């Protein structure tokens, strides 16, 4: 049931994206979107924050990386 709910949500989101998928930005026009300011954090800080949230909130996963590993507590 949980997996079905998640799959349904993903399908809905992908459909939403599909509506805009016909937009093609040429390579020469991608300078702005490659700026690091478009990212939430660099890799070093992102993994530190992810570890903190996974440990203190007991709700890891779903962000493109593996969950678990190491105590972290609250696993």
């Amino acid at each position: 049931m949980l997996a079905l709910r998640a799959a349904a949500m993903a399908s809905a989101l992908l459909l939403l994206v599909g509506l805009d998928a016909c937009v093609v930005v040429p390579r020469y026009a991608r300078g702005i979107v490659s700026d690091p300011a478009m990212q939430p954090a660099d890799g070093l800080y992102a993994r530190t924050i992810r570890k903190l949230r996974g440990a203190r909130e007991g709700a890891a996963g779903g962000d493109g990386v593996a969950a678990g590993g190491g105590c972290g507590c609250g696993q």
Partner: protein
Amino acid sequence: MSAARGARTSRRLWLGVVSASALSLASSIGLGQSFDSTPPPNGVLSIDAFAEPDGRDLPEPDLRIDRFGARLTVFHQTGRGYQSQADVDASGRGSEFVFIANPVIYTHLTQRDGITHDVYLPIDILTSASTDALDVVSTASRDNESFTLDGTTTIPDGDDSRFLVHWGAHVEEELKAGMGGLGVSLDFADDNAQLVLMADAVVDIFDPVQYNGVDLGLTERVTMSINGTFSQLLSETTTLSLGLGLTGQIGTIQTPWNSVPLAGGGGRSADLFPPSRLRSAASIRLAQAIPQSRTFLQAGYRFYADDYGAIAHSVEGMVTQYLSDDFWIRGSYRYHTQGAPFFFMTEFPRTAWVRTYRTADSDLAALDLHEISAGLRYFYDRQGQASDRSGYVELGYSYYGRSNSLEIHMGTLGFQTAFW
């Protein structure tokens, strides 16, 4: 392009010893190609060892360090929870104080055949690591260190796809962990969209030291994750990312030294979780650039649910503002709310069956939290349009406050430099 590379020639780092290790890695995954593992003349890391005096471009090295970064983050945590036995107050909650220093180093390596490696080496140094646990019985874990080696090898497979190999290990007091995973990254629509799929496994082997110091011998926990991330360019200034993940766990899932106070006082009972757990999460993130004012906005939402009955929602926003070509300031806010698992309790009835699932861990309680961050970044080596190859120094501070009294103050200092 050639001029830029020429200018950087004298700054290249050559790492012969690592080349030999990379050869072993590439061979072990069955994708090794002709590889010259001969170390440089002095046999160790050297700078400018191969620089040509006339400034000509050098031939491609077997393995080069493209980027290197390091970051130190310190955490100061205070709070009180029923699972803690340290300095218990009149309400029955013990101290959750802990101070953590977390240095991390990172490097991005590229082999001549195009295979790349992203390697992280985080170290956690904790004081009062187990204020809610072992130190009540013994001071053996008053100070604790942990080490992790976490890498991802990317193997190109044509212009629009690549295979990903995740590998690593984690070592700390009472716990050893190994991790591995396989994945694929696919580009679509002239690289306007990207899909990344990963399957990972983590095996934790640890001593389940109980709240009263009793060591029950080795036990294990196995975690399997399947994650997907889809990113799409919506315009020249807008990107959208979607994430979906499923995580299954079996084994000893509870933190073994946590415990629940017995009803009426005078004793405690060790945490006991169901032997398996299935978690899922979905996330969406939108990033928008405003070139006229050099402002970048991000917004995200994340939904989480598991078979323990816990549901969580998180929303966050971020603003990054360039003050000059080389300097930005950034602020962010995140709100998170979560429900508790069905077996959360702050006291364990004395008449309950001994195998009744239970936890008083404040991390699993129903709570709200606010996370506020601010940071500065100075690009000292921007080289034109800023990119993930730009060198920088960054300073940041974050406040993390939960409705059940836990507070964390974080300070961070990091830098990155590019050699190639």
